[in-house]
């Protein structure tokens, strides 16, 4: 049981929000020590494994080009594209964003973000579309739309990224399995991630469709109320 001390250190360290790298290294050293290794052996395992898994950090090579694309308006152009859509409902805005985000992360295009896209663009568009088709929509519905807007970013980001052959997640799977004595290819892991990406889009679409239903139900109810009032 003492060997589980590393897991305990990670759980406590992450909950207390200590620096992640320091927590992971501490957990590793503690685990090695209770497992009967000396410090030099532990350093050797850490260093050897790190050098062997340098391929997990090859994304560093893509940073300069992504940086200049951002400098020359990549995000602005994406925003222009999305906002050129017309006649949409809240649910459809979110479906389209989820699809774009899924495809972008599957192609390793780091285009998205709650701060960059959801707050300035997607949430206002979804709320605007809802309010446009039903002026009675109020604060309660606005709050619900915000939750779904933030969620659309997470669905696309999480479940699309492993479709990319050299994503951090795919390489983590390959690297961890290799350390455990099983060799798999990144391409096979990426292909195995496709069904979940597609299913995520379908499930999120159903959830947004239900959101639209709810928003129009508000419309029907509030109409009768306003008619009685009038």
């Amino acid at each position, binding site marked *: 049981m003492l060997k589980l001390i*590393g897991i305990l250190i990670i759980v406590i360290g992450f909950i207390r929000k200590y620096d992640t790298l320091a927590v992971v290294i501490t957990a590793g050293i503690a685990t090695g020590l209770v497992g009967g290794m000396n410090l030099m052996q532990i*350093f050797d395992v850490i260093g050897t494994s*790190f050098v062997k898994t340098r391929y997990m950090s090859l994304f560093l090579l893509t940073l300069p080009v992504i940086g200049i694309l951002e400098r020359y*308006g990549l995000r602005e152009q994406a925003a222009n594209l999305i906002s050129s859509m017309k006649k949409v409902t809240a649910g459809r805005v979110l479906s389209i964003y989820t699809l774009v985000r899924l495809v972008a992360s599957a192609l390793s295009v780091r285009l998205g973000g709650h701060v960059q896209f959801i707050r300035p663009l997607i949430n206002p568009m979804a709320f605007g579309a809802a309010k446009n088709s039903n002026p009675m929509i109020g604060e309660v519905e606005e709050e619900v739309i915000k939750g779904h807007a933030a969620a659309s970013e997470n669905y696309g980001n999480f479940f699309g990224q*492993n479709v990319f*052959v050299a994503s951090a997640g795919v390489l983590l799977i390959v690297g961890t399995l290799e350390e455990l004595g099983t060799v798999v290819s*990144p391409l096979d892991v990426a292909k195995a991630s496709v069904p979940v990406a597609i299913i995520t889009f379908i499930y999120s679409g159903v959830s947004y469709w239900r959101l639209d239903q709810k928003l129009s139900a508000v419309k029907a109810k509030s109409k009768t109320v306003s008619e009685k009032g009038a």
Partner: protein
Amino acid sequence: MTMKDMLLEIMYVLCGLVAIITAVYAIKDHEHPSAKITALFWTLLGIVFIFGKYIPGSASGIILVAMALLAATKKVTFGSLKNSDEKFRQEKAKAIQNRLFIPALAIGVVAFLVAQFVPSLGALVGLGFAAVIATVLGVIFTKATASELAYDGSRLLQQVGPSSILPQLLAALGALFTAAGVGEVISGGIGSVITDNSKLLAVIAYCAGMTIFTMIMGNAFAAFAVITAGIGVPFVMSQGADPAIAGALALTAGYCGTLLTPMAANFNIVPAAVLETRNPYRVIIAQAPIALSLWVTHVALMYFLAF
């Protein structure tokens, strides 16, 4: 050394240079709150990337411990490197239009094509080629200068920060867990629950372990190393599951946990604050039905596709 290994080694040297250029921009940044510590961190990373193959593993290990200590000071930070201003970006977006997407899309497409059609080189060399091709296309379309490439590369790496090497450190942690025999302890505990060799129970235990551990730690990557060593390999893979399929589904089963936990603050709590919701758990509430249906789907997919 094979052609593939040689190309990879060249790419690691290039990665190391990106890290060292980042260090240079940090030290030259006079508004950086902790320029020296930040520069030292990225220099050390550059050294491990460039010389890792030629120095003893224990030396790299000691360098990594030193980097973790630097990160623990919380002074490996982002300085004052800036993106262009909004007006410039809008003008350029109008001028360059959708051609801006081509280099970005080239990264994923080229890497996939190389992985698919040149298996002797594989996805990793493919990513290297893709980065080079995308960079050339990017420079052609934007007419950016070489110094802008270096500047923006360092800007992004400083923004990502020390956590950029977290996946590699977690793999190293997995190696230590294996060396110390942690997997056996967990599998001993699970083994007393899963007594008959039921594939379905093993799959449920793997998916549930990933989700619950991710919810506790707020990080599916950390959970993956632990749960795959403890449950995945000894109970699921050992019964003949395809490791690529089971592994891929296990990680995204972990992401179902990410959708459900306030521990994943970056994804669930911070966005709620950014959107100024009244309920701080608004995002998790929206995600819960999807997360639970996806989780059940993961169990079914792993059971039917991996075996």
